[in-house]
């Protein structure tokens, strides 16, 4: 029993860390064509995410793998019900990865332009669709014993799209702040200016999200039952305000950290609201996939808990070391010596 709850928390944690890390890669990729005008600027933005994006993406692979190992029934139905949107996310992620790696090798203007579009779309589409997917999960998917009744277009409902936009603007702010930390001068100023603009849009979406979640979902039920848990969404709101405050004060590092904390507390607000569901059924809660009816056996969960407890701290340690190693301002020196 207790292992199922541990894994439910880990499930949320893996998604939260994934969005807090790859989120800024996405944001940087979305801002990239708008703020980087010449070749040097473009190289700088790509270099800003170059050493870390791939390691960040592994959190997604791990979130997927952990869902498979700990909640196989959820994994099976989540992925097959959301076939088309996941396929689009997958293609976009492939495009993003290849574009980031191969853009520096482009020679002709056409090649460069195509990879630029690849970086932009490959970052924009997952940002929006991950939000749409989670928005729909918050609402519940239309499924019962005999199958799923939704389509790609039924997922693109107002609430789903709102959460999509919340994710999108959040990642743009997050990415803008990251770029402003990593590059110099005008480019950093430009990134900061965008982060500021998009923070307002992010804040509007967050307010709408707080209100409309009460209308479209049952997420508030858990909080009303145990008001103590309101601390988590309250933390999210605080982090969002603090992010805005530091953006206005031009304290970039602090703004970035609070933006990351906002993402983590936002994901956990959703996860607490979902409990004990992983995928609620909007037809009847008796069909919902919960951490109790969709989990692996206690034996498997125990094995996986041991693995995670040993290896995730090791991963966090060396990833933190990597961030420290690459925590420098990118100058012309770095951009010139880059042979790859």
């Amino acid at each position, binding site marked *: 029993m207790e292992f199922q709850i541990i894994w439910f928390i880990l499930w949320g944690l893996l998604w939260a860390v994934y969005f807090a890390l790859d989120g800024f890669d996405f944001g940087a990729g979305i801002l990239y064509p708008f703020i980087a005008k010449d070749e040097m600027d473009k190289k700088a933005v790509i270099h800003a995410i170059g050493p870390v994006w791939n390691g960040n993406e592994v959190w997604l692979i791990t979130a997927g793998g952990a869902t*498979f190992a700990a909640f196989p029934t959820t994994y099976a139905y989540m992925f097959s019900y959301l076939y088309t949107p996941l396929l689009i996310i997958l293609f976009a992620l492939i495009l993003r990865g290849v574009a980031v790696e191969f853009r520096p090798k482009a020679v002709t203007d056409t090649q460069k332009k195509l990879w630029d579009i690849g970086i932009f779309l490959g970052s924009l589409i997952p940002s929006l669709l991950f939000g749409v997917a989670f928005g729909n999960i918050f609402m519940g998917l239309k499924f019962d014993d005999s199958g799923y009744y939704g389509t790609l277009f039924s997922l693109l409902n107002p609430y789903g799209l709102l959460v999509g936009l919340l994710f999108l603007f959040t990642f743009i702010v997050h990415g803008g702040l990251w770029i402003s930390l990593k590059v110099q001068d005008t480019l950093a100023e430009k990134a900061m200016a965008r982060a500021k603009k998009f923070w307002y849009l992010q804040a509007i979406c967050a307010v709408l999200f707080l209100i409309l979640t009460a209308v479209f979902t049952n997420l508030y039920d858990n909080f009303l039952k145990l008001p103590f848990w309101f601390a988590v969404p309250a933390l999210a709101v605080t982090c969002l305000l603090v992010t805005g405050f530091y953006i206005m004060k031009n304290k970039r590092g602090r703004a970035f950290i609070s933006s990351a904390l906002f993402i983590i507390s936002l994901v956990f607000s959703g996860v607490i609201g979902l409990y004990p569901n992983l995928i609620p059924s909007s037809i009847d809660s008796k069909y919902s996939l919960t951490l109790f009816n969709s989990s692996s056996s206690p*034996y498997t969960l125990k094995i996986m808990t041991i693995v995670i407890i040993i290896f995730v701290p090791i991963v966090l340690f060396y990833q933190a070391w990597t961030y420290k190693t690459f925590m420098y301002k990118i100058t012309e020196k770095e951009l010139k010596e880059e042979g790859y």
Partner: protein
Amino acid sequence: MDTVLLSRLQFAATAAFHFIFVPLTLGLSILVAYMETKYVRTGDKDYLRMAKFWGRLFVINFALGVVTGITMEFQFGMNWAEYSRYVGDIFGSPLAIEATVAFFLESTFLGVWIFGWNKISPKLHALSIWLVALATNLSALWILIANGWMQHPVGYVINNNRAEMVDFWAVVTNAYGLLKFAHTVLSGWVVAGFFVLGISAYHLLNKNETEFFKKCLKIGAIFALVSSILVAAVGDFHAKEVAHTQPTKLAAMESLWNTTTDAPMYLLLIPDPENEKNSVEAIGIPSMLSILAGKKEIKGLKEFSPSERPPVTLTFVSFRLMVGLGFLFILLTLLVLIKFRYIENSTIFLKLLLWSIPLPYIAGQLGWIVAEVGRQPWIVYGLLKTTDAVSKAVEPSQVLASLIGFTVFYGALGIIDIYLLAKYARKGPEPKEV
């Protein structure tokens, strides 16, 4: 076409495409790590140029290996939901462990390696590519433990209408999975050895940096020779394990229809599955099949109902070609070492080496055809049929659309990748500093 067939085609296409990039990664990471270590130890700048030259090709290849790997993880749930639900309690764990233990290490330290040339000490830099090499080979271990379980399920009980793990250690030490791991990883090292041989041969043909590329050629040849011999040796053990655990696959590999004691091996054989016999059987080596399989009596395909037999011709031909190629690799690499001293003058042989680059790739693909087609009609041998494993919520039209999407998208990416590999392979290493 139905969802099952389309999903199988899609899985085959995306897995085969993914496996174009994986084997080179497995072997080339080790070679680059060796070259850089040589540089750190001796200070010989040629080894630094070597690590950078082969490392650049490694990175181009790695990019596609990683992104096409995500597809594999998504597809189990997307197209094979019933499979995932039924075996996730066991199959999910090695996948999650692969990500946690291997993927993080590999992706993080490749980033460090690419961007860290002037940021960390040379020793630490060399260590980071060793960690990449360790991690890629470790990821192969976990995914092949998972695949080994599909071939020969162990350590489980059927409970709650699904397979549940009762013995993790049995799953991890499943001989089938470990043999498959050794066989697959070594075959990847052969791919990398021949990749280095072929590109070095190209530059020797063009009289470009002869001394430099002769060094590369030697490294590639020794690595490929040792790996080719080992892959054949492990293959022999692996075949015995197949004979022991998957009688239908073994019978299909050898196109054996009737149960035979002291079964001979026919060097020339043409299967005729429609009439459940072979139309040609010639040049038999007495008892050879029984010896190789490590069993006196070999069960023939007729022991099993036609619905439980894999496609015979495809399995048989793939197996024969793979084995033939395996022996060719040993021969070719031996010749490189024998002719090494004046090899830059043997134009024809160098051309042969250049044109041999695709052969180990083909052998690897054939090996996977034997493994996966030979397992049919089972997705988990003896436990779950492929037809029962497919997603119920997915329409054939969805799979058809995604299959077309994958074909077009992957096709374009494949062309771009080969173009870039060829471009940077031709370009050669950075010129020597004067």
